[in-house]
């Protein structure tokens, strides 16, 4: 995300310019866009979602929504983690005419008209009003604009990695965990979302001991540790499968053990006008100070309940800022800062100013008496929200622990550990020790013979220190929500949800935290609750009279940080792969019109359907059928398996024979058809249709998985064989020229399956004829596909052979009344109704898939039937034309063609069984009128099959 940020660059700063809303802004190298804007005095960087209030920098860590801008056309970029670059064009969003002066701020004044969920209660009466209102809403809604100048042409890539232990987070705990695991002899991958290791110590120099740099260099130089910097783990999926974004790259990391050392972030206070520019988290001020080299002109008030507030104050003062006061929530804090006025037991009630903080009102926790302090900045250090969403995602169980005021893991998911601040250990010494413990535990879990998979809670014997001490009994349950106040106190900055909105929603009945979220939209915006969830839960708990633990949390869902679609899609130029048969080049060279068949490219037609049709019917034709699915089954129990899978019989299939088969599902519905050849006693070669090749492979494996005791070995050889179909009255003469094998009718009759040499290549040859002619389906190893293809065409030249495409094939098979699964059948078609009753052998002793349903169907009788028909008029209707009976839907056409053999338009249709006798008339709706057609029982071509069997 922020891979461009340099590592605390020590070099002499280079300055350059970029553009913000048309103005030129100077930046120093290493600065973020937000830092440069801060230095330039641009403190309003966005407008809020609903009320269009001015917003300034709050978190400086890419977690809040306040600094979202459009950068070089990309909408919704957090400029606080985006390095400034020369010439960059940054534009504010969601404001008109500008972010400095936004007319839509009027909504802020009209808030009484727009209470929580107002849109559910208005704008729908009378009914025609809603579409009118909706148009207005759709004009105002949304954040960034779609960037039409960018296509999916970015440079993206994907990487797959494996590791023994993945450590997420390069702070103190993560560094120690990585070292401890690596020293124990396992491989470690350390993923950190910052450009440099060190976590929050990078911008809190007092905490960072001198040993930090030594620790970092030990990690960086450790041979067993792979550090991935500037990379965000956005998801922890099943079985420790981590999704990681690093700039334009997505890394998929499979880890045997995962340690989440993800730390925490600061949470903001909820008080009146708490969204004013100038109100900032202490860590944000520290980042600006130390990483962006910014200054804070004017006075600062610090509100705090912990040591961090004092450190921030010290650092700000050292940088030349005057500290107006420290407002400490605690009555007896251990820290102090010489020469600074303090208000103990106080908190901030409200901030004043219209476009920037001008002062703050403070009061004791009870709310009175109030006093006003003048200041330009309000820096808040009032506690932390643990970054625990990856723990939740992976199935860890957490419970809110009042002593540390955060959720703590009570049960880890298998092979997952956590360490450091996410465990409530904020003190550097404790975090380091916890990291070492987790690192050792992860390594031990890997090395122990039984692969202990979880992190027993007892191991964590570190005492969790109470930070602050504000949890004394007299403290109110959630001091970070200020008491009273009539002005807006924002809980959710993304969606402009105030404390009052939440209370109102609960009063209306949305008291469950999940329904509350959906109704008030709290935590549903770009930050996904990072800034607001803690306060929302606290307010919900208070208003319901429940504890925080009882209130629960909303579900943590990936991605942890917003994730660009381009990164997910990766380097996909065509997005879906293209499959080509071994003869593809030949087809293209010979002028074939290619078409898509799933991922395959197939020749549709070479010359014309008429010419190709004639070649097959009168001489010989050759079609590429390499796309067929091909499966080899071997083993003693293959026959048993086939008998179970297919409704027809296979026990009696002799070696050297091939049989047509239909595969049905449990309901007897046709899934696919194909041929089954027995090449040896325990060796079978099956074909499936092109479209179902993968589905049938899965189907077989699915049923085999439950029958491990059966000796059936399945090999998918779809890609290993090229296949072609030689068909036509002269095809035997053609093939004879290429083989020594006996092709005579006696030696290789119809439905023979043999393994012979064709053109010097070993081939499986099946004597079948989908198009209704003497034909040979020839399977040869893929690398010889084009050689055999060319050899056959060469051999057939004297007979005037021609290649033919799918369009001719479709017509040829239609004349034979052969259906195509999925084209002529649908999710209701069983073989009984699809005119294949002979294929269903209900008298097979053992069960087969679909047997019960087919028996039932037979008993019931057919309701619908697949029939062939011939139109009485010389027109070709649309494929999707309907068959009507008495004005109602009676059926539909599935195939259509102009048949030379029938001398007219023929087709296949599903119609009511009552109309399906030979010679019955059906009516087809064509262009709004009904045209008669006659049901035809027999194939239109060669009904007795003489040519096929010749």
């Amino acid at each position: 995300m922020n891979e461009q940020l340099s590592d605390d660059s020590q070099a002499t700063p280079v300055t350059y310019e970029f553009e913000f809303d048309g103005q030129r802004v100077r930046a120093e190298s290493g600065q973020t866009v937000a830092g440069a804007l801060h230095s330039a005095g641009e403190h309003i960087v966005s407008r809020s979602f609903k009320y269009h209030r001015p917003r300034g920098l709050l978190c400086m860590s890419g977690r809040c929504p306040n600094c979202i801008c459009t950068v070089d056309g990309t909408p919704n970029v957090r400029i606080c983690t985006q390095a400034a670059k020369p010439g960059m064009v940054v534009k504010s969003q969601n404001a008109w005419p500008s972010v400095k002066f936004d007319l839509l701020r009027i909504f802020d004044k009209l808030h009484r008209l727009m209470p929580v969920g107002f849109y559910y209660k208005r704008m729908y009466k009378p009914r025609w009003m809603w579409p009118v209102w909706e148009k207005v809403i759709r004009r105002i809604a949304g954040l960034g604009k779609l960037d039409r100048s960018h296509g999916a042409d970015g440079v993206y890539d994907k990487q797959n990695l494996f590791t023994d232990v993945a450590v997420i987070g390069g702070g103190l705990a993560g560094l120690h965990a990585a070292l401890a695991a690596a020293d124990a002899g396992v491989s470690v991958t350390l993923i950190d979302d910052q450009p440099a290791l060190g976590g929050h110590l990078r911008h809190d120099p007092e905490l960072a001991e001198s040993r930090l740099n030594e620790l970092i260099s030990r990690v960086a130089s450790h041979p067993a540790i792979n550090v991935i910097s500037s990379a965000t783990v956005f998801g922890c999926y099943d079985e420790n499968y981590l999704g990681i974004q690093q700039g334009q790259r997505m890394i998929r990391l499979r880890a045997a053990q995962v340690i989440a050392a993800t730390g925490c972030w600061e949470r903001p206070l909820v008080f009146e006008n708490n969204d004013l520019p100038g109100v900032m988290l202490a860590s944000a001020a520290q980042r600006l100070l130390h990483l962006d080299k910014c200054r804070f002109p004017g006075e600062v008030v610090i509100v705090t309940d912990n040591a961090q507030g004092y450190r921030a104050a010290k650092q700000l003062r050292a940088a030349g800022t005057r500290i107006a006061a420290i407002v400490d929530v605690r009555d007896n804090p251990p820290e102090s800062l010489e020469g600074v006025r303090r208000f103990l037991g106080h908190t901030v009630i409200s901030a004043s100013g219209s476009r920037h903080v001008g002062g703050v009102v403070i009061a004791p926790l009870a709310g009175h008496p109030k006093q006003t302090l003048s200041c330009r900045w309000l820096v808040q250090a009032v506690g932390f929200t643990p970054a625990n969403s990856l723990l939740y995602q992976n199935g860890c169980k957490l419970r809110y622990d009042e002593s540390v005021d955060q959720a703590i893991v009570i049960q880890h998911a298998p092979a997952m550990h956590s360490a450091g601040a996410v465990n409530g250990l904020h003190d550097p010494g404790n975090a380091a020790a916890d990291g070492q413990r987790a690192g050792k535990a992860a390594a031990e879990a890997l090395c122990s013979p039984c692969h202990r998979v979880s992190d027993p809670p007892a191991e964590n014997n570190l005492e969790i220190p109470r930070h602050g001490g504000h949890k004394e009994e007299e403290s109110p349950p959630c001091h970070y929500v200020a008491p009273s106040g009539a002005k807006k106190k924002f809980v959710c900055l993304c969606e402009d949800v105030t404390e009052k909105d939440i209370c109102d929603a609960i009063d209306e009945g949305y008291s469950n935290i999940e329904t509350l979220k959906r109704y008030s939209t709290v935590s549903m915006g770009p930050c996904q609750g990072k800034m607001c969830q803690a306060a929302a839960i606290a307010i919900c708990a208070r208003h319901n009279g429940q504890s925080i633990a009882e209130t629960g949390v909303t579900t943590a869902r990936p991605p942890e940080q917003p994730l660009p679609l381009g990164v997910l899609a990766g380097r996909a130029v065509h997005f879906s792969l293209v499959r080509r048969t071994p003869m593809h080049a030949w087809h293209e060279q010979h002028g074939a019109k290619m078409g898509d068949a799933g991922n395959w490219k197939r020749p549709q037609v070479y010359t014309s359907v008429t010419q190709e049709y004639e070649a097959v019917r009168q001489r010989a034709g050759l079609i590429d059928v390499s796309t067929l699915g091909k499966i080899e089954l071997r083993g003693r129990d293959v026959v048993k398996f086939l008998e179970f899978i297919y409704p027809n019989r296979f026990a009696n299939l002799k070696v050297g024979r091939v049989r047509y088969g239909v595969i049905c599902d449990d309901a007897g519905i046709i899934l696919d058809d194909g041929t089954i050849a027995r090449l040896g006693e325990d060796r079978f070669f099956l074909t499936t249709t092109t479209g179902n090749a993968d589905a049938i492979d899965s189907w077989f494996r699915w049923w085999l998985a439950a029958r491990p005791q059966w000796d059936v070995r399945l090999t998918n050889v779809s890609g290993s064989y090229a296949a072609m179909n030689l068909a036509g009255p002269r095809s035997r003469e053609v093939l004879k020229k290429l083989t020594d094998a006996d092709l005579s009718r006696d030696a290789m009759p119809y439905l023979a399956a043999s393994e012979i040499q064709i053109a010097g290549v070993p081939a499986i040859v099946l004597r079948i004829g989908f198009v209704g002619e003497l034909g040979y389906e020839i399977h040869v190893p893929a690398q010889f596909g084009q050689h055999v293809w060319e050899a056959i065409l060469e051999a057939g030249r004297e007979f005037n052979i021609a290649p033919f495409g799918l369009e001719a094939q479709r017509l040829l098979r239609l004349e034979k009344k052969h259906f195509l699964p999925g084209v002529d059948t649908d999710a209701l078609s069983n073989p009984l109704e699809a005119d294949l009753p002979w294929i269903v052998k209900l008298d097979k002793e053992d069960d087969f898939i679909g047997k019960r349903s087919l028996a039932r169907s037979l008993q019931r009788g057919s309701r619908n039937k697949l029939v062939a028909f011939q139109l009485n008029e010389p027109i070709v209707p649309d494929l999707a034309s309907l068959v009507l009976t008495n004005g109602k839907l009676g059926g539909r056409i599935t195939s259509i063609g102009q048949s030379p053999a029938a001398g007219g338009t023929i087709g296949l249709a599903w119609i009511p069984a009552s109309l399906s006798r030979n010679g019955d008339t059906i009516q087809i709706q064509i262009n709004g009128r009904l045209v008669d057609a006659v049901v035809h029982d027999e194939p239109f071509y060669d009904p007795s099959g003489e040519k096929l069997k010749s």
Partner: protein
Amino acid sequence: MVSQRMWREHELKDQYDVVIIGGGVHGLATAYYLTKLGVKNIAVLEAKYIGFGGSGRNTAIVRSNYRTPEGIAFYDLSVKLYEQLAADLDFNVMFSQHGHLTLAHNERGVTGLTERANTNQLMGVNSRIIFPQEIQQIVPDLNVFGHSRFPIQAALYHPPGGIIRHDAVVWAYARGVDRGGGHVHQKTEVTAIEVQNGQVEAVDTNRGRIKTKMVLNATAGYAGLISRMVGLEIPIETHPLQAAVTEPLKPFLNSVIVSSTLHVYVSQTDRGELVLGAEVDDHASYSLRGTLAFLEGAAIHLLELFPHLANVKILRQWAGLCDMTPDYSPIMGGTPDVKGFYMTVGWGTYGFKAGPASGYLMAELLASGKTPKRLEPFALTRFYDDCLVGEKAAASVSH
């Protein structure tokens, strides 16, 4: 505007005339229409919170351009009830009927959609085939003429289709039940159903026992588990269905776009978020965890349709459970085996859009004991009698 309580919390009574299990759109709609028919001593039991299941996880698409006459008639009733729902329930459910486009990228797809258009028109549903020029006019940002692996050849255009604020529908029905005198019990989990002599007698919950002669199973993904409580095995497999949402963008997409070839569909809410999804996961599971593979696939396919979205960010992903039947159609009605046990289940990926119609007709069935004609094709017995409904082609991916 005085805020009024949407629904109240009640003590669990020890007897109800009807107990509805499942506080989603189906259960609540049935309860609501029951109160309108005068059956008021009823309870809706929800184990978590209302809308926890599919009603809160679906992608809120409403349409009636199905394939079979049974399906079309049923969903057409639902669209009409949805159009009236805001007025009927006095709550803006934000039904935005900006049209629904199902894309075809190959000849077979065009044929299937043309057949649906013809059947829709025969049934009086507004639906027609449109071609690239018109598709581009309706959706200017769609990649119709640019480079594409599977160029768009046609679309089934269904102007009354659109999206709705799904949570609002759930809440509004719950309020309707409450105002009508029914009880909505959240965090109330059914642990057993008592059957004596083939008749339902009582329901046990974590909050106590309820005597009742009539139980409706409206539990979607958990339908099989609840039915098993009365010893009934129903032909349902539960599969996860995943979806995701992006950060809000200024609205640019008004219609719902569906592509079966690319296994993706997308719409843009009034808040500006793009909502996207795919087909159900291959394998049966009760897991509510999303997968990375889903996100990657959805992104690849969405970018094929809208290449400009490459730098738009996914905000969250989630999964819901779909109760799939073999014929991709619901099971509605009673069972001859257990008197008093009724179901509106098997709603798969198409349940939310059917909520009002199923609730309306199920209420009629429960109140009168007679099966309305429009429910007849969807009886459980169709699986024993082999009278399946052929909705698979129009229901599977195209939500």
